């Protein structure tokens, strides 16, 4: 009789413990865990509220003048970007600009090409066929040129941060494509050409410059990138998700500059400056005007 009673009591204890375990495992433990998470979350939010209040109290909010300046940012960007109907219009415009510049700098031998495979267009004041030496030299640079073209592909577009969120990008396509200019000229003329290459409407950005100033007639090739807006579908359209692949422009969100009002006078626009006259080192032929 006694062992039976003992066994029954033991069973009752086991059953009670089992019920307790069910409560602990299925309900109490997850709830206590959730309570801890909620406590931490509330603490975090309270801290954020406190920090934000302190930050907002020392933050300079924009006045109407600054608001209008900030609102003009997008229009200013749109103004500087060349707008074309279709892709083919851009090389034509770039070529016209470069032709004018080559004439202005009186550069005898120059060549422009837009794709790696093409022979390019001869520019320069020397007339057709005179730039054979330049073409020969370029044929030796073939590997460098091929590699340089790959730097400028749309997968490594560096200006995403500038154009993201711009209204006009939704209406038109942003395109970016490379071109190569190769030229041989006395060094001062060559340097003036390099300096002036970005002054036109196409706003060419130099990506890579290769120069051999020690040659009998200094020679160089430049890979440039041009950005433009195109209305029709473009083979050179910038891919939206390519920003992470290349160099990118970042703004430090903690920069004290962002806490202060933007003062238009403090933003000095880049000026078109001529190079100082070159000191004659005896090595280079002076440009004749």
């Amino acid at each position, binding site marked *: 009789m006694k062992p039976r009673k003992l066994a029954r009591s033991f069973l009752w204890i086991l059953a009670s413990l089992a019920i307790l375990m069910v409560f602990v495992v299925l309900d109490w433990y997850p709830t206590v865990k959730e309570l801890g998470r*909620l406590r931490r979350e509330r603490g975090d939010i309270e801290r954020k*509220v406190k920090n934000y209040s302190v930050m907002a109290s020392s*933050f300079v909010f924009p006045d109407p003048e600054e608001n209008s300046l900030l609102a003009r940012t997008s229009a200013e960007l749109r103004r500087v970007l060349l707008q074309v109907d279709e892709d083919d219009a851009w090389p034509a415009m770039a070529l016209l600009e470069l032709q004018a510049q080559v004439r202005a700098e009186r550069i005898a031998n120059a060549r422009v090409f837009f794709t790696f495979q093409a022979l390019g267009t001869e520019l320069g004041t020397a007339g057709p066929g005179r730039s054979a030496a330049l073409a020969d030299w370029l044929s030796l640079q073939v590997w460098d040129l091929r590699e340089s073209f790959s730097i400028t592909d749309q997968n490594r577009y560096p200006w995403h941060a*500038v154009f993201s969120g711009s209204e006009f990008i939704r209406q038109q396509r942003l395109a970016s494509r490379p071109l190569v200019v190769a030229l041989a000229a006395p060094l001062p003329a060559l340097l003036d050409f390099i300096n002036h290459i970005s002054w036109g409407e196409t706003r060419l*950005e130099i990506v890579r*410059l290769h120069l051999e100033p020690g040659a009998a007639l200094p020679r160089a090739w430049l890979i440039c990138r041009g950005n433009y807006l195109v209305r029709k579908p473009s083979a050179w359209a910038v891919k939206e998700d390519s920003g992470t692949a290349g160099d990118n422009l970042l703004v430090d969100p903690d920069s004290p500059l962002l806490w202060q009002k*933007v003062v238009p006078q403090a933003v000095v626009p880049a000026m078109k400056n001529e*190079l100082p006259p070159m000191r004659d*080192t005896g*090595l280079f032929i002076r440009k004749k005007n």
Partner: protein
Amino acid sequence: MADKAGRQADAPISRRSWPVWPLVIFVMLAAVSLLLHLEKASRQKSVLAAREQFAALVRAAPVEEVKAQRGRFYISQYYVGYPIKNSYAAADFVRRLAEAAAPPMKLLKLEINHGLQNFAFKLTAGVVAGGPEPARLLFSGFVESLRNFADISQASFSDPLPATALTPGGQRAMFVISISGQAELQ
């Protein structure tokens, strides 16, 4: 004895044969659960209230939005000025290098790779000298003048190496030096 056993077997099963205490324990456990859930609901409410307070604060004082607008303004300005600044920096850098490489030194090759805020350069200069030591002396002036370039943030120099065989008569050869580094866009 047999009579006692018979009476026990005939007796109806009393309620006390099911003890009350398991029920009491169950009710206590359920009560603890209930309290925990009430506390959880209360904390969820307070988290929601805190979130709402933060959202209201952000709406009232949109600091991050204004910071983003200002950031966009500055990078747009940078973009607008970049091509001109970039091409001037390259041309002026070459001009200063060419001036620094005074005869008998010769600037043989230069490559510039532009970034958004700086550019990497690699140049080769050559000089005709009677041996590595005289060549090193001739190069030292050039290297020293590069140290005065305010825009160069880092540079490394190779030792002069003979690029051509010694000339038959004068025991002189062309020595070259390679310099690579980085310069800031100013």
